């Protein structure tokens, strides 16, 4: 049983999805989805522990030997990402019960869980596989299901948002496929480890450079790197609440993981950072993204949209860590992937609770809601502080390492920029806080109660995680450090 964990990680949600399709009964589907999500988390944690103990796990699908057969590889980096994805899934699934019930028509609820499970399987699959083409397959599974999930949003605009994402996402996936195709043409292999070997003598090849470009840009689209982010704010704003939580916590993180995997493991540090100006390019995009998107976030009047823009800005911080091309920078970036997942999940969870009660997340609609839903908005505030980077929250820890990495490089202006842009986060978080607590509710509003426990508990798990990982950081920092060292060490 133990040695089959890697395949169970993916196959479990993948099989549960058609089972849900057959069942169709809303509550049963929810139960299946929740149990599967929890099992996935347990598996992910077991895998990470195994990897931390005994090094990378290689699993041959159907016992077909590696370069020919598909291979699943779990090392420190993707073990870490698997836990993030599975953890967000495990929190979202129970939360979805009430949230989805109130936002979706009865007949779609079963389908929702089908799509959710497919999306989870896809994201876990992308992360765990050691095969470049397999990444594409799972990418399509997760993308198609997320288009469907977003389009389920209550408002008609959700359809448009899903369509926009579909167009952009398809372009991204196509670019990625072209890149993988070029690599296959040059090397005759799709296994990542094998690709890495075969590509070494081909570093000068223009086709390999083109492949690199296609893959990075293609994943950049899925990752919502500024300026390829335009699909994201609409998608997050109009998707059903539970979907916003799930995608905000997982989708972009997994895409970033693919980028890391390709530039470090497949192409290699030398090729990516020394052979071409990836560092400076990422730096410019990251900085522009952080500044522009934080400013745009300030001017939003829908909180979900505001959070979405903030997500694009936060992706900038992760890329910033990557652009330093140092172990410390990479560690800060990886840590921010983790921390941002729990921060944004928490914030969107809180907004889902508000949406359940008010049917809107507009700033003028949530006026005075802090007094009526104190637990929800308290959770929002704490996660918001984490987003700003106030100690003792998780957000502080990753910002701290990011600043240290900038200082280590001697890049004073970048360090200053990280601190200054935190001020922009203060402004947009405070806008929400001020509306929720310091404005009087609109006259039309009746009394509303606190969100149900089944939604508050997941929210406060996220809040607790934000505080816990702000205080007791040895666990996640060490894993991020080990993963960063492994990525850098393998190639230097």
């Amino acid at each position, binding site marked *: 049983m133990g040695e089959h964990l890697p395949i169970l990680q993916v196959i479990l949600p993948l099989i549960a999805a058609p089972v849900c399709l057959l069942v169709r009964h809303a509550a049963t589907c929810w139960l299946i989805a929740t149990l599967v999500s929890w099992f996935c988390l347990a598996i992910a944690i077991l895998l990470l522990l195994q990897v931390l103990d005994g090094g990378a796990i290689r699993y041959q699908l159907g016992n077909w030997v590696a370069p020919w057969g598909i291979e699943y590889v779990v090392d420190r980096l993707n073990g870490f990402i698997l836990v993030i994805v599975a953890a967000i899934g495990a929190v979202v699934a129970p939360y979805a019960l009430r949230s989805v019930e109130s936002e979706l028509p009865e007949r779609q609820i079963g389908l929702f869980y089908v799509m959710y499970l497919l999306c989870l399987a896809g994201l876990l699959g992308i992360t765990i596989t050691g095969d470049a083409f397999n990444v594409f397959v799972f990418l399509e599974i997760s993308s198609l299901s997320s288009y469907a999930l977003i389009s389920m949003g209550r408002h008609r605009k959700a359809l448009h948002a899903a369509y926009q994402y579909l167009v952009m996402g398809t372009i991204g996936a196509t670019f990625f496929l072209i890149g993988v195709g070029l690599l296959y043409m040059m090397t005759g292999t799709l296994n990542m480890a094998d690709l890495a070997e075969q590509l070494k003598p081909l570093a000068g090849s223009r086709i390999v450079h083109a492949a690199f470009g296609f893959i990075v840009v293609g994943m950049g689209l899925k990752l919502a790197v500024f300026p390829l982010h335009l699909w994201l704010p609409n998608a997050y704003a109009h998707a059903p609440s539970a979907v916003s939580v799930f995608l905000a916590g997982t989708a972009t993180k997994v895409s970033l993981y693919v980028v890391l995997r390709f530039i470090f493991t497949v192409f290699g540090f030398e090729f990516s950072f020394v052979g071409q100006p990836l560092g400076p390019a990422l730096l410019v995009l990251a900085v522009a993204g952080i500044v522009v998107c934080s400013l745009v976030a300030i001017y939003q009047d829908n909180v979900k949209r505001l959070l979405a823009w903030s997500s694009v800005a936060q992706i900038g911080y992760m890329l910033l860590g990557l652009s330093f091309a140092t172990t410390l920078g990479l560690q800060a970036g990886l840590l921010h992937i983790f921390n941002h997942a729990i921060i944004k999940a928490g914030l969107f969870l809180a907004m889902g609770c508000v949406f359940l009660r008010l049917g809107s997340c507009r700033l003028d609609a949530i006026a005075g809601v802090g007094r009526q839903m104190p637990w929800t908005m308290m959770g929002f505030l704490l996660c918001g502080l984490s987003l700003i980077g*106030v*100690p*003792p929250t998780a957000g*502080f*820890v990753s910002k*701290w*390492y990011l*600043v240290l990495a900038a*200082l280590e490089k001697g890049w004073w202006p970048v*360090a*200053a920029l990280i*601190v*200054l842009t*935190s*001020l922009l986060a*203060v402004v947009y978080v*405070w806008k929400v806080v*001020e509306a929720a*607590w*310091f404005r*009087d509710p609109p006259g039309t509003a009746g009394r509303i109660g606190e969100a149900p426990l089944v939604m508050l508990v997941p929210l406060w798990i996220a809040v607790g995680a934000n505080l816990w990982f*702000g*205080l*007791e*950081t040895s666990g996640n*920092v060490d894993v991020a450090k080990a993963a960063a060292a492994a990525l850098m060490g393998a190639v230097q």
Partner: protein
Amino acid sequence: MNAGLLVALAVLVPLTGAGLIALAGRWPNLRESITVVTALLLFCVNALLAVRVLGGEAPALHAIEPVEGVAFAFAIEPLGMLFGLVASFLWIVNSVYSIGYMRANGERHQTRFYVCFAIALASTMGLAFSANLFTLFVFYEALTLSTYPLVTHAGTEKAVRAGRVYLGILISTSIVFLLTAILIVWQQTGTLTFAPGGILQGKVSDTLGLILLAMFMYGIGKAALMPIHPWLPAAMVAPTPVSALLHAVAVVKAGVFTVVKVIVYVFGLDYLQNLGGSEWLLYVSGATIIVASVIALQADNLKRRLAYSTVSQLSYVIMAAALFTPMAVAGAVLHIAAHAFGKITLFFAAGSIYTAAHKTEVSQLDGIGRRMPWTMAAFGIGALSMIGLPLTAGFVSKWYFLSGALDARSVVTICVIFASTLLNAGYFLPIVYRAFFRPAPEGGPHDDHGEAPFPIVLALSITAAGTIVLFLLPQLPLALARAVVGG
């Protein structure tokens, strides 16, 4: 009791109190009792700690280390102990006062008010007892955030605008300058822990030392060095108990406390004495004293006048510390305590006048002393302490400050002290004169009032008495002040 546990209690008692107050929101009497009991407990904790500190111990608590080498840690030294004692004692008095004030004025959202107050006190304790710059910074920001709802308490357009100024100045200076300075200190020295004699000696170049000094002084916006003082007058829209305890004691003293702490325990007096170019702080704080006093002279609104007086008095502390001599620093430490008692009395009196007579302007106070003898007598004592006349606490600290200035042969300082004494007399004595010696205007509105409600009068009498007691029995603060400078 275990010393570490006591330290933890200093922060946990008010925090727990805040939680209980929130839960008891529906029963005002229970809620207010919890506030007073929490304040009493907190003072007991501080008193127990003070016994240890005076006995030469340094109670410490190493809580948790989120980032390698940077810990949430507390270590109590005499300066923080004095600040903690003053703040926790005055919180008891202020709680009594608040009950009278908030009820008499029928303020809304009283639960939020008391909860935020308790959180602000928890932050103050954490700040006073912090063992390193990181912990101090966290509580510094927590103090800003927890007092924001108090500043905007009224919820009016004006209050919200004032709240923006408050938050804008305090947060931006602290993040842009203070946090960056802390990061530079970390980068250069590898430590953030306060140490007697400082941690910068030999670790940074002179130029960087000067830059750091400027960043710290302007990063600590709560010390209200000009030109970053406007948040303090803006904060006066808050209900008077807030202005009294927070914007005359806890918040502003947190500012100058941090200034003294940074000068003594991060830079070190010896280091600064030998650092050429650090005199600018003397001039800037001197200018702040004079300019703020001149503005106070012209202000007709009583709370505004008191606010500018606070700006000026805060710079006394900074200027005394900026002489970098042990005697003057002792004066700075004493002034933190002395000014606290005097200024809280003045604010209590201002709130008392507002509650009983609904008067806010100095020009309306003719003859009010006959109707409100207790209030105006207390005001007079507070005013004497501000001027620094004998029989009040202000004299003691000014004495040390002046001795320090003579030691350092700083002519500028001596001139500023004299000029400011005259200015203080110039803007406080006319109020006392009006109140007692001018006839009340005939047929004015609201002139059928008597004294303010009992809790208010009780509170301001206690603090006025405290101002005199501190003059007669200054041993405790003196012992702590001497211990700060190691003499």
